């Protein structure tokens, strides 16, 4: 009578110990995983190209054209420093037959911040909604030709040209958008940019109609990017 009771007690204690050991092992494993997530701060490097600029270039009949790409680094799934580079230009004839042309490389540096909230103790997702900032820079030459001044009373007209004008432009951009991992390590997404020039042109001075990387030379611009990238 006593022996089977003792055997049951032993079985119960053994089962309890086994459960505790398994639980402890699992807890250690989770801790190791959690520690691993904490220590991995670099989550990948993503080169990307922008297709929206290529599409808008193809529908603008050569008046403006642009191509750009970049590299973005993912840090702790929160911070995404980015470097963008591109080539853009314009060949424009205005309504009064004044011509403008330019082309140049441009560059931008900045950072995106993951605005998606992830629950604690869950693996961070690779799909994100983000906001960020950029600082853009370009140095370029441009030509303006055939600016006519007509004298309706005294008669005569004068054609003015401004060739090889040089300009350096710096601007900042406020960006927002989404990135989605459509296949493993392949990302697609769009970015809306509000671009704002730093500094302004002197009144009466010649100034460019188009700024590579910025767009048409107004104090503020809106543009859209649609990017495809691969995360290494």
């Amino acid at each position, binding site marked *: 009578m006593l022996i089977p009771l003792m055997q049951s007690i032993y079985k119960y204690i053994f089962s309890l110990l086994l459960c505790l050991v398994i639980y402890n092992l699992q807890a250690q494993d989770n801790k190791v995983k959690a520690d691993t997530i904490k220590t991995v701060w670099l989550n990948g490097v993503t080169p990307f190209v922008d297709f929206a600029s290529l599409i808008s270039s193809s529908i603008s009949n050569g008046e403006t054209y642009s191509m750009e790409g970049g590299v973005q680094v993912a840090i702790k799934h929160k911070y995404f420093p980015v470097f963008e580079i591109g080539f853009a230009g314009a060949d424009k004839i205005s309504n*009064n037959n004044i011509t403008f042309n330019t082309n140049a490389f441009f560059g931008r540096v900045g950072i995106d911040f993951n605005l998606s909230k992830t629950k604690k103790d869950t693996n961070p997702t690779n799909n994100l909604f983000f906001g960020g900032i950029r600082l853009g820079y370009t140095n370029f030459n441009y030509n303006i030709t055939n600016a006519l*001044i007509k*004298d309706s009373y005294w008669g005569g007209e004068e054609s003015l040209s401004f060739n090889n004008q040089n300009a350096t432009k710096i601007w900042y951009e406020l960006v927002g958008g989404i990135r989605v991992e459509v296949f493993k390590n392949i990302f697609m997404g769009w970015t809306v940019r509000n671009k704002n020039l730093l500094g302004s042109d002197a009144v*009466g001075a010649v100034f460019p109609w188009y700024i590579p990387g910025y767009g048409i030379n107004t104090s503020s611009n809106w543009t859209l990017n649609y990017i495809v990238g691969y995360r290494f």
Partner: protein
Amino acid sequence: MKYYFSLILLQILFLVTSCGVDSTCRKDLNVIMGVSFYKKTLSSTTNTYTTTLTSIDSLTVQGIDSLGMPVKHLSSSGVIVDSALYKNVSGVNKISLQLNKSKYATESKYVITYKKKSDTIVIVHNNSDQYLSLECGCIKVHSIDTVIVATKSFNSTKNFIESVKITNHDVNTTNAEHLQIYF
């Protein structure tokens, strides 16, 4: 969720594409020199001159070219006629004159006729180019140096103009006063 993202993307696309830049020039491409007429009256009690903006009648203003001939233009009927800026107008206290825009021009001459008396004013000025935009191009702006008043035959006697005062040397707008003519 994807549906909402697509909808937002579509709206943004419409927003971006609808924000096109207006390519029409809406600025005035002619700058104008404003000239006002003032009457100078000597007060017998204080023995000082007072000036009052005065409207005048029977006023004709005609530009004179570098050869000393009236500026002409081809009329709609194909006849070359004198281009009077003002022809026998009445009740005006301010006139607007276009200075010569030629890059070689250093002066603009006008014959001002008032009640059948004519004086010539010679505006000595510098011209420079001012870029507005790709849509508008350039305008010519002027800086008035001096004003010389003479009779139509350029002798030193004046017929009705007593003096001319430059109130603003820079002619770069359409609505400012630059000269005051006293008579």
